[in-house]
């Protein structure tokens, strides 16, 4: 009886809610893949506001880049932010490159793959062209107004791979 009582006491004292520990949540989210991160944004308002923090997406884009790119942050922020960079360029580029080499596999394989300087540069260039095309079309400032619609020059990335 004493044991159960103690057990109950432990439960009351040691109750844990992740929402009270934002630092821990952020550390966890830094390690998940893009799909999980997007899913996490749908859990509740608090998680949504955390996921919208661009530094999480920066981490997602470049945590496996060796060496990590320097001075990229202001450029990417000006062109639309890391979340947009991931959605519009990094994810399709990586999955297309991976499919060429391995042929199949889920997104978890995409995340663990280390990608090199050339691939980073190419993704950034494509991202910049996409930003410019949005400028040409609407005159909108980077990111917010044009929504998530992909500019036409990157349509080729979104098409199904015709192997």
């Amino acid at each position, binding site marked *: 009886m004493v044991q159960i009582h103690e057990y109950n006491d432990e439960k009351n004292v040691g109750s844990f809610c992740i929402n009270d520990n934002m630092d821990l949540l952020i550390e966890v989210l830094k390690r998940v893949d893009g799909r999980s991160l997007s899913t996490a944004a749908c859990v509740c308002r608090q998680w949504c506001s955390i996921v919208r923090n661009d530094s999480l997406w920066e981490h997602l884009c470049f945590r496996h880049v060796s060496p990590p790119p320097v001075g*990229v942050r202001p450029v990417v922020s*000006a062109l639309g932010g890391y979340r947009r960079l991931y959605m519009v360029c990094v994810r399709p*580029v990586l999955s297309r490159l991976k499919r060429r080499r391995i042929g199949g596999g889920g997104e978890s394989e995409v995340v663990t793959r280390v990608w090199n300087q050339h*691939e980073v540069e*190419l993704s950034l260039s494509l991202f910049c062209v996409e930003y*410019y095309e949005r*400028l040409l079309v609407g005159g909108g400032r980077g990111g917010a107004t044009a929504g998530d619609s992909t500019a036409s020059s990157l349509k080729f990335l979104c098409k199904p*791979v015709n192997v």
Partner: protein
Amino acid sequence: MGPHDSSISAAAGSTSSSSSSSACSSSTKPPQPPDQMDHLLAGAGYKVRSNDLHQVAERLHRLETVMVKSNPLEISDLVNDAVHYNPADLASWVDSLLTELNTNPPVPVPTDLSDPHPNMNNMMYATNHAPHLQQVVAQPFEEDVSIQLVHVLMTCAEAVQRGDLSLAGLLIDDLQALLGRVNSGCGIGKVGSFFVDALSRRIVNSPENAAVHSDLSAYENEILYHHYYEACPYLKFAHFTANQAILEAFEGQDCVHVIDFNLMQGLQWPALIQALALRPGGPPLLRLTGIGPPSPDGRDSLREIGLKLAELARSVNVRFAFRGVAASRLDDVKPWMLQVSPKEAIAVNSIMQLHRLLGPNSSRGPPIDLVLDWIRDLNPRILMVVEQESNHNQPEFLDRFTEALYYYSTMFDSLDVCTAQPEKALAELYIQREICNVVCCEGLVRVERHEPLVRWRERLINAGFAPLHLGSNAFKQARMLLTLFSAEGYSVEENEGCLTLGWHSRPLIAASAWQAIPKPSPTMGPIIHP
């Protein structure tokens, strides 16, 4: 298009004598369609009237049956010992083969094919058996429609070259009929229809008439160009390779000036601005001078593009200045318009523009030499040249036509894998305009005078430029760019420091980089010639 090559060259060789003879024979009789020599076989050297075709087909069918059943020894005798008189006379030749093989032709051979009234026995036999034979023989003909199409295209082009426009007109009708039978959604049907259209325009219009051939405004041309940029990788390859070479040439320079020979919508430059922004040591001061055609409606389209590029440069903290130079022809541009300063490093960027200067000489001399001369005077650190890898500037029309047919068929093949509409349709329209210019136009109006890389190398070396090797970074980037495209048929190759992009080992676009060799300084005093 590989297997068609031999048929093109073989057909082109044999058409010259026979089509003139068929033209003669049809001109001596009053024009009655059933009695006319069949155009398709005439091109191959056989004189057969259209209403005798089923008889010929029947005889060939019987010959095939007999040969299949015969003793192989007899056949080899046929090959070695038989003497055939006048093989161009197809029906009697087949009959002679049949008699050699000891069968009795039930129908007497009409010895004179130009006899307008074949005897009644022939007619009755033929009509009794015609429906069955049409069915038997029709199938192989349909499978070969694409080969026929190419063949008749070559015959028609050859007629155009000789100036026989009436025969060419008749052949156009045949071509339209053939196009109706082939799948015009892809492959030879689609390319064929563009070439047929171009040939018929050439027959109808004068090739030097500029008003007819330049029918799109600069704005519409930009739209087509943009969709061509999106649907296939050729322009992206050109831009990315050029940017990589320019970036490497500008290493360590604080003031840089890029001169773009065809600004269009400036799609090449955002990536360079971004790469300069991220360059170790910080971005330089970038000046861009964009050359383009003047806008007719008073809009300063060059300046508008400049403003957008400036906005982008501002976002990424690159000091940027833009200048637009409006000129309808590149040789109208004078060096003082570019306002280069001696302290800056200069890059000249020509994406598919230099070939437009290979036209007829102006009063000041060949336009290409003039322009290369002032480029050399600017002393650029790099001259980037991207051109179509094909020879569409040969003096003989038929050679140009053949080369263009092969080149654009390959390009359309590569475009087939693109599924995004309307990009694909508008990209095809863009290519179609190029085809029209190569086929329909002459003189000043023909601006698409593509030449292959080897010719450009000679020309640039003679003009005082030294080749710069495009490094491995450019090569890797190009290869990576191509893996992003759905199709597996693209190939990047390195060719003596130049990069070519092709489809299934046929190069279609070639990119090369050049450096100006400074001119020797002028000697003081008069030059004394020994």
